[in-house]
């Protein structure tokens, strides 16, 4: 009798959980992740330490290359500043709207939800640090994804290889545009509905097109690996520019 009543209580508990309104489930989840944030960050750092051990020789070499690149970029930046001022003056003469510079926020990756068709990252910055929903995240390699949920001191980022991700993209050489879908199966992103007469080829780079209100223009998404014929249309299979298994830090822009 006691066993039966405890079973009924548990079933009721499960049914209540399944039917809880989203605002309550969000609160439960946020407080749970808030509690686990520090151990998650510690474990992620530990796993990176073991999986990608530090090689001091390569660090020294990388440092030298980065220094060289830094000098080149500084020079390029001073030139670009000059062009930007010139561009602003010309835009004001033509009466075009000024483009606002991005403000950025750096966040560390503290966890991964790669279960059951999902590709979601947990990152350290949250609403307290100024993170907002739909902010775009990238790293030095390219586009990572967008923020889908914001807690007090953490956020969830949906990667571009999540099956629910849709990014407006443009192929660099042919200037053809379309939506880049996250893969349902396999590791390549898909740009669907390219016309049959499309001259795009494997090796071409795909960038964000700037269509829609979320992703700004010109961030690299990936490189086309294969073009597949699908009935009336072609589909481009795109290898993401970002290595998601080695993702430690992301920069979020608004």
């Amino acid at each position, binding site marked *: 009798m006691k066993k039966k009543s405890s079973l009924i209580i548990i079933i009721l508990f499960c049914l209540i959980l399944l039917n809880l309104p989203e605002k309550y489930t969000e609160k439960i989840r946020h407080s749970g992740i808030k509690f686990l944030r520090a151990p998650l960050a510690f474990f992620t750092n530990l796993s990176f330490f073991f999986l990608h051990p530090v090689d001091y020789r390569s660090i020294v070499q990388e440092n030298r290359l980065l220094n060289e690149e830094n000098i080149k970029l500084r020079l390029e930046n001073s030139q670009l500043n000059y062009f930007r001022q010139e561009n602003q003056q010309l835009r004001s003469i033509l009466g075009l709207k000024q483009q606002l510079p991005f403000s950025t926020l750096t966040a560390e990756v503290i966890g991964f939800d790669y*279960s059951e068709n999902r590709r979601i990252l947990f990152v350290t910055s949250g609403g307290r640090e100024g993170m907002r929903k739909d902010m775009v995240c990238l790293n030095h390699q390219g586009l990572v994804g967008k923020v889908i949920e914001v807690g007090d001191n953490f956020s969830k980022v949906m990667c571009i290889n999540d099956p629910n991700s849709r990014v407006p993209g443009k192929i660099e050489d042919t200037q053809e545009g379309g939506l880049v879908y996250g893969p349902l199966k396999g590791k390549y992103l898909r740009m669907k509905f390219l016309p049959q007469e499309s001259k795009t080829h494997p090796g071409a780079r795909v960038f964000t097109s700037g269509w829609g209100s979320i992703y700004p223009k010109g961030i690299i998404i990936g490189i086309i690996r294969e073009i597949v014929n699908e009935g009336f249309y072609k589909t481009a299979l795109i290898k993401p520019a970002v290595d998601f298994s080695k993702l430690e830090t992301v920069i979020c822009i608004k």
Partner: protein
Amino acid sequence: MRGIVLRSIILFFSLLCEYTLLPVFPSPLKHLSFLWLSFVFFSFYETDLFLLWAISAGLARDIMSSGRFGIYTFTFFILACLSLNIFKGMIKDNLGIKLLYTFFTVFLGLLMVQFWEGFFPEVNPAYVLDIGYLMRKGFINSICFPLWSVLFLRMEKWISTV
């Protein structure tokens, strides 16, 4: 009391590994799931509070996952009921049967989760039933289960002597 502490630690570290270490492991080890292994471990070695541990594992997974809240708790509860009432009679102290049990538990559990995901498409519209993924997951976890259980039985023994 020590048993409860040890099991809580197992569950806590399983959860942490599930969302930090395991997803970045190279394939096929990335299919390992310490939470599922803990569930199977509890089903063999924890008879009194098994239902409670199963629900705790499900609840912990629900808190961390981005799917519909409660799916894992319900799935783990149903699996726990099946383990207590149906599988328990079939399990003998035989390694092959234990491996088979682990495989079917992980396979069936994930199949149920994917079924729920499809049942609530507003949470994950890009739902797809991937049997290959379930098979891989079941296979890798069943192979690693003996190692996992030996590790924790040893730890339990060591803690009881401290």
